[in-house]
């Protein structure tokens, strides 16, 4: 299965907060006026949000949606930096670097695909879902969260034509349990696109590899620079991967591995090239 061309050219954009919606306590959707960014984003790409306070590192955030001159971000307040971003209101300026990274390849021929999202992972898959639906694929969204309130934007996906399979850890909405259990229980799709915490992505990868289904996984590692300069965000790949950086491989667990940068070679990788 082919992936889109490696490397992408982000820029620094000064954007203006156009609208703000609080989807749940601690979950914010900001729509930014950012014409050039909006015009150049591809599904699964992200941006680095430069902290309005000037303090602390920039924060990696998926570009959730784009329309016209607007691009939006959807984030969960988990610490200082997202708390900073959550103070922004319409009219405020926000500098961002992007679009960055290699996103999902939605141009494959599969007719029946599954999107698997866990927690904030939902922010990385909307553009992907839209592209897949646009080319006429059946799209099932397997979406899990800790509790009902944190299952956000489900209506948007449903209205667009996705079939929703929801799960919560506490059973307050959808099936109780892990989203990967729901995936396993369902009829196998032809391809999988997933974003969420590492444990979830690992088991999505296992499922995909068992069933020999191609799976594109969008990883969330802690970022430093976000642009390929610090090697802080790496993940082990099989040395033969097209995305493996030109480095001498090392033996690990019986195979040749190379650490690739999630921010630069990724954030999307194929399940069968990951060696974690």
């Amino acid at each position: 299965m082919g992936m889109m061309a490696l490397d992408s050219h982000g820029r620094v954009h000064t954007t203006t907060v156009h609208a703000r919606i609080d989807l749940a306590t601690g979950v914010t959707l900001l729509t930014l006026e950012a014409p050039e960014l909006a015009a150049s984003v591809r599904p699964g790409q992200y941006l680095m949000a430069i902290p309005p306070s000037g303090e602390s590192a920039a924060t990696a955030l998926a570009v959730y949606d784009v329309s016209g001159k607007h691009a939006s971000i959807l984030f969960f307040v988990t610490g200082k930096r997202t708390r900073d971003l959550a103070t922004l209101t319409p009219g405020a300026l926000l500098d961002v670097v992007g679009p960055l990274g290699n996103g999902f390849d939605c141009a494959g021929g599969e007719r029946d695909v599954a999107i698997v999202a866990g927690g904030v992972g939902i922010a990385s898959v909307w553009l992907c879902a839209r592209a897949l639906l646009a080319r006429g694929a059946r799209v099932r969204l397997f979406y899990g969260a800790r509790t009902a309130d944190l299952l956000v934007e489900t209506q948007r996906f449903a209205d667009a034509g996705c079939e929703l399979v929801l799960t919560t850890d506490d059973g307050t909405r959808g099936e109780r349990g892990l989203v990967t259990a729901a995936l396993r229980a369902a009829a196998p799709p032809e391809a999988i696109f997933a974003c969420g915490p590492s444990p979830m992505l690992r088991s999505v990868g296992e499922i995909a590899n068992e069933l020999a289904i191609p799976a594109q996984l969008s990883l969330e590692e802690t970022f430093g620079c976000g642009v390929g300069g610090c090697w802080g965000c790496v993940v082990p790949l099989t040395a033969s991967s097209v995305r493996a950086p030109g480095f001498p491989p090392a033996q690990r667990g019986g195979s040749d591995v190379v650490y690739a940068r999630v921010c630069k070679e990724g954030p999307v990788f194929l399940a069968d090239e990951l060696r974690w």
Partner: protein
Amino acid sequence: MVNATPDLSVKLGKLRLAYPTLMGSGCYGSGEEFAPFADLSKIGGIVLKSVTRLPRLGNPTPRLVHTPAGMLNAIGLQNPGIEWYLERELHKYRGRPCKIIGSVAGFSLDDYSYVSQRLAERDEIEAIELNVSCPNVASEGETFGCDPDLTERVVAAARATTDKTLIVKLSPNVTDITAVARQAERAGADALAVVNTVRGMAIDVDRWRPRLGNVTGGLSGPAIRPIAVLAVYEVAQAVGIPIVGQGGIETVTDALEFFLAGATAISIGTANFTDPRIPERIAAELRSYLTRRNLSSISEIVGQANAGITSAHQYEGDEG
């Protein structure tokens, strides 16, 4: 002089920098990663990621943790090894509009002298920085920088291999940094980089495990700035060679603290993760600061926080 634009250029041994700003080793890649966002002709130079004799896969993940006003990293000197580096990486640095400084790490005297020599031979490389202070490689790396005598021997070994500017990067994780600084100077260092990261750790309270794959890491960013400013202030009084001040520089005010403490140049690392435009902004604001004060050159403020204050105050501090 008043109307001429102030001169920001500085010299580290033979190395002349158009701007007094280096990009910290390991933080700026080869520069190409930042080129789309930053004007490399507006920085003094880039210190490349430290390279070792043999390839290193580096530390297991996670390698980064964000901490209050800072960051812990434990990359573990991931690099392809010197041979591969010379063959397949170095060409990238040709024609950069700023200076390129190679960084050498190692686990033995031989490592340091061999890698220094191989790097210095290449004309893409205009100076060598000896990283005797990496806290993230099961401690061998750092032991050199934590022992004045070992430091002297490593520096002497590297010094013997090249006439290019030799910068020695010191560790803050010592009882007396001035002792190490003096030995490095004695052994022939042209300049000192002060300081590398401070050893630290963070723990995941949900999973009861260290948050870094390597357990411990190096703390950088504004959190360590007061520690780094003091190290520069003390080293500046102990040696005669120029100092490259670093540790948490994010704004022109931060940069000025280091110059006033005694740094001839500064290095910017983690701040590039906040905003890639920071180095260019700091250079511009340094210029206006000097202009406002009718100063003609950055060198005029180096060490100015220093003169004679100490004694007076400490005398009084002992009263009572």
